[in-house]
Structures are given as C-alpha cells and as structure tokens.
C-alpha cells in the first residue's frame, strides 16, 4: 500500500505535482495515467525519496521511504532504462545493488533468468538496446522480491513480444498480492493491464477509479445522424423522448437508441438522412478529453486549442462527474 497525502512539488514557479492525494492498493495493477509532463515521473521519484516534496508526504506501508531498512526488499522500481553504469556488466550492476541491501547473490542469476538476459549477463550494459536496458531495469526492480513495484513507462522501447511479456509479468505479480503501480501515457495500454486507474493532468488528480467503471462510463455507444431537415428531425427525436446533442456541421448525436430504431423513426416521418451510423467513443478519446485542458505541450496547428474530434459530451459528462468527486472514487455522483 502506498499513500500519497497532499503531495506537492514545485520547480521555481512551476507546479509539477499539485496536492496529489491517493492510495495505491495491493493485489492489483494500478495504472498511473497522464499526458507528457503531467508529473508522473516526478511523483514516482518522490515516492522513492529521490526528489524532495515541496509539501505533503508519501508513505509506504505507513513508513517514509528513508525509514525502510533495505528498501529494495520493500519496493522495486524501474524509473528509466538508462539508470545503470554502462561500463559494468549486467550481472555486476545487479550484484552491487544486491550487496547494498544484503540480498543473496543467487538472486542476481534468478532475476536475470526471469527477464531473459542470462545470455548477456556478462556483457557491458552500454551495448544494450533500449528493450534490453528496460529488462535489466525490471530485473533490478525484482531483485529484492519486493511487495511493491513501480514501473515508469515500462513498455517504452519494448517489441511486441516484450510488451506482451511485461503485461503478463505485472498481472502475475499483482495476483501474488503485490502492489503494482505503473505509469503510462497510453490509455489503450492501461486498458489491457490495469485494474485501477489514477489519472493526473498538470500535477492534479483528475480521476481515481476502477478500470471497469472507467470503461463502463466512457465507452458507451451512440448514433450519429445527419439530415438536410435537421430542425424537423430534432423535433421528432424530442417527441420520441431522446436526448439530442448537436455537435456542429449539422450532425446530431443520440445516446440510448439503436440505428434500426432511429432509421425507422426517420422513415415514419419521411425525413431524409445523409448519415446514420453507430459510433463508439474510444477510451483513448475519453482520456484525451479528460486531460485536454491540462495537456502542457500542444502540437501547434490551427486547431491546437480545439478539443480532439470526439463526442465531446462524454468528456463533459465525465468532467462533471469527476469534478464533484475528484478526490474520491470518481464514480457517478
């Protein structure tokens, strides 16, 4: 269990992490999601006591990181692929870490085997590819057989086989009752691995919800309609008791009705349709919508300030919901 309490980090005038409070529970994979620059890595560095918080605190099983005796036996962390001395072999890099926390040397060979680096154990780590460096970092995290594991963007640089492997590894570790905290800026990746989701943007907590709830609330389908007789169509839909959202460009979006029902309804009233299509808001769109206001590095285009081209009502709906209970569960209020 990791508890963050009002965690804040300021670099000069810039607030990197803003009063972040949440809990990371054991026995599941908790996804830590946010766009680039949202403060994910800074938060993780503060969890490991590498960066000093401006205010607030992080507790691991009730203790401050610095109070942990031989911390590698409590927490293992993969921060970035290049956090080993390149002139030292993979084996020796792990050996000096193991020795500092009195972990038996036999563990070094074990974890190298787990991550599939046994064949290159004696090679200098500077010759490693990004994926191999990532595996070595994971080996280091597993060294002390810790109950808590932090992974910062673990799939970066991994090939599809490696990505598959790390997903399964995280699920296996969580099923053993460990606390797994993994950051990513890819919603699709989280949807496949995480059981719980913590979303931040510009250092602030945007959502703290179970993955199932998030999917339930954000991937509902809707129907898109376009018609030259838009006024009439809207009246007809209103009469039928349907909620219509106008999205510009003459398009209407209707929640809670099938294409069949809407097509027949239009036919009954002899309304010409130019489009009748079933749509599904992807989780990625829901995530982008949620964080749109807090994305720090926008690409410069004419539409830079416009929201992503998705059904905006989902995001707005989400914002209303999470706005009411941002620090709580993020469920509907």
């Amino acid at each position, binding site marked *: 269990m990791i508890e963050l309490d009002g965690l804040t980090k300021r670099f000069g005038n810039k607030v990197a992490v803003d009063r972040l409070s949440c809990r990371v529970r054991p026995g599941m994979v908790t996804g830590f999601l946010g766009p680039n620059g949202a403060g994910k890595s800074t938060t993780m*560095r503060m969890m*490991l*006591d*590498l*960066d*000093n918080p401006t205010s607030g605190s992080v507790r691991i099983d009730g203790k401050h*990181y*610095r109070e*942990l*005796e*031989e*911390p*590698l036996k409590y*927490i293992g*962390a993969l*921060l*970035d692929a*290049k*956090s*080993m*001395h*390149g*002139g*030292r*072999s993979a084996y*020796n*890099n792990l*050996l*000096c*870490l193991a*020795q*500092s*926390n*009195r972990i038996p040397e036999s563990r070094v060979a074990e974890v190298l085997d787990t991550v599939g680096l046994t064949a290159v154990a004696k090679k200098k780590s500077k010759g490693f590819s990004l994926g191999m460096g990532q595996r070595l970092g994971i080996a*280091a995290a597993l060294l002390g057989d810790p109950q808590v594991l932090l992974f910062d963007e673990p799939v970066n640089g991994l090939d599809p086989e490696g990505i598959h492997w790390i997903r399964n590894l995280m699920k296996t570790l969580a099923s053993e009752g460990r606390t797994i905290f993994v950051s990513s800026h890819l919603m699709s990746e989280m949807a496949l691995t995480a059981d719980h989701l913590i979303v931040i943007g510009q250092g602030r907590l945007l959502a703290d919800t179970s993955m199932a709830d998030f999917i339930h609330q954000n991937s509902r389908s809707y129907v898109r309609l376009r018609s030259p007789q838009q006024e009439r169509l809207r009246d007809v839909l209103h009469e039928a008791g349907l909620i219509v959202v106008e999205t510009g460009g003459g398009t209407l979006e209707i929640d809670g009705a099938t294409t069949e029902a809407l097509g027949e309804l239009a036919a009954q009233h002899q309304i010409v349709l130019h489009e009748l299509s079933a749509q599904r808001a992807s989780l990625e769109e829901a995530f982008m919508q949620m964080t749109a206001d807090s994305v720090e590095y926008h690409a410069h285009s004419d539409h830079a300030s416009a929201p992503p081209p998705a059904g905006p009502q989902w995001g707005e709906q989400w914002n209303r919901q999470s706005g009411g209970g941002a620090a709580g569960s993020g469920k509907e209020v």
Partner: protein
Amino acid sequence: MASVPAVLTSEWTKIRTVSSTVWTLISAFVVTVAMSAALCALMNSQFDDLPVAERATFDPTLISFSGMVLGQLAMVVFGVLVVGTEYSSGMIRTSLAAVPQRGSFLFSKVAVAGVLALVVGIATSFVSFFLGQALLGDHHTDIGADNVLRAVVGGGLYMGLIGIFSMGVATMLRSSMLSLGILMPFFFLVSQILSAVPGAKKVARYFPDQAGSKIMQVVPDAMNSDPAPYGPWGGLGILVAWVAAALIGGYVVLKKRDA
C-alpha cells in the same frame, strides 16, 4: 538504516567492476614512477650544471616524487570518475533508491575509494622513492635518514588525499566533465603558475596541492623553493582541511538536491 558493511561491500564491487577506475589508478602509479625515475636519472647526470642555490638545497627525496605533478592528475580523474559516473550514467537514482540514507551512501563510497586511493598513493610513493634513489647514484639519500620516511609516507598520503578531494568536488558539481574541467587546469596550470607569480604566491601557498606537497620536502625550502609559514605536517593539515570542506560541501549538496 542500511547496513554499513553491506554498503561498503557494494561500493567495493562498483569500483572493481569498472575498468575506468582500475586504469586511472594504474596510470597514477605508472606515470608518477616513470616520470620520477626519468627526472632522477636526469638530475644525476646534470647535477654539476645546477645553479649553486639549488645544489645547496638539493633534496633527493623530493626529486624522486617529481612525477607526482602529472601522476596526481590521474588521481584526480580517479576521484572524479568514482563519483561522477554515478551521475553521468543515471546510476545515482538506482543507487539512492537502494541506499536512501545519503550520508551512508556518500561516506561509504568515499571510504572505499579513499582507502584504495591512499593504498595506491603509498605504493606509488615508495616505489617512486626507491627507484629514484637507485637512479640518483652518488646524490641519493636513505629511507633511514632524518625525515625521509615521513616524506615518503606523506607523499602517499598526499596522492590519496588529492583523490578524495576530487571525490568531494565531483559530488558538489554532480558532473564528471565539469569537475575535470575545473580540477585539471587548476592543479596542472593555475596553481603552478600562481605559485610562481610574486603577488599571488602568498595565496597560492594555501592551495591544496601547494600546501599538501610540503610534506614531501626533507630539506627545508628544498630546491630553492619559497619558504612557507607552515611546516610539513601543517601543510598536510591544510590539505586535509580542503578535503574536509569538499566532502562536507558534497554531502550538503547530495542531501539537499533532487537526484
């Protein structure tokens, strides 16, 4: 608290498993011994051509350490790399996650690397001395003569302390390149030049290398050098003070800054 013996073992593994640290220590030894030997041989053949003042204050012990001017630079590189590669490689984050007590981490590292630097320093000065004396022919001195043993042991301590000083500086600057960029010109050029400039002399004699190297002189004001307001041990004491200041500075920086 992390177990200190465990951290010491870990730091020893770090040093012995990287070739750069091993090679810099070997160069410190080889460069010092070879250059000292060459200068001793030269002195022996040119002794009669020396100015009278230098002949009168000829110090065969000091001459056999003359290679340290260059050899100490390898020691500086060793000290800087031991700390600096933690930062340049990103290993520092992994290291501090494993040993979050930053004081234990830094002082274990400095203890292991420092003892190693002192051992190599002492070995260098003894080999340099005996080889130098053998090459000095009629002008040689003996290890049993007054103050000679003090100078030889002191020469070793000097080299080791220069290495430890560099570790402290590298911890403060958190970068190998920056540390080397400052320390190398300082020891090789600035300190040497200022100690020869009349006005700057008075300040330069308190520089770590100028003060510390006093311990290697057996003949007072050897080779017609300037008299200093401190004795051999006083000079070494000044160097020790510099080392302590660098380490305290390094500790404060490591403690305060984000890794």
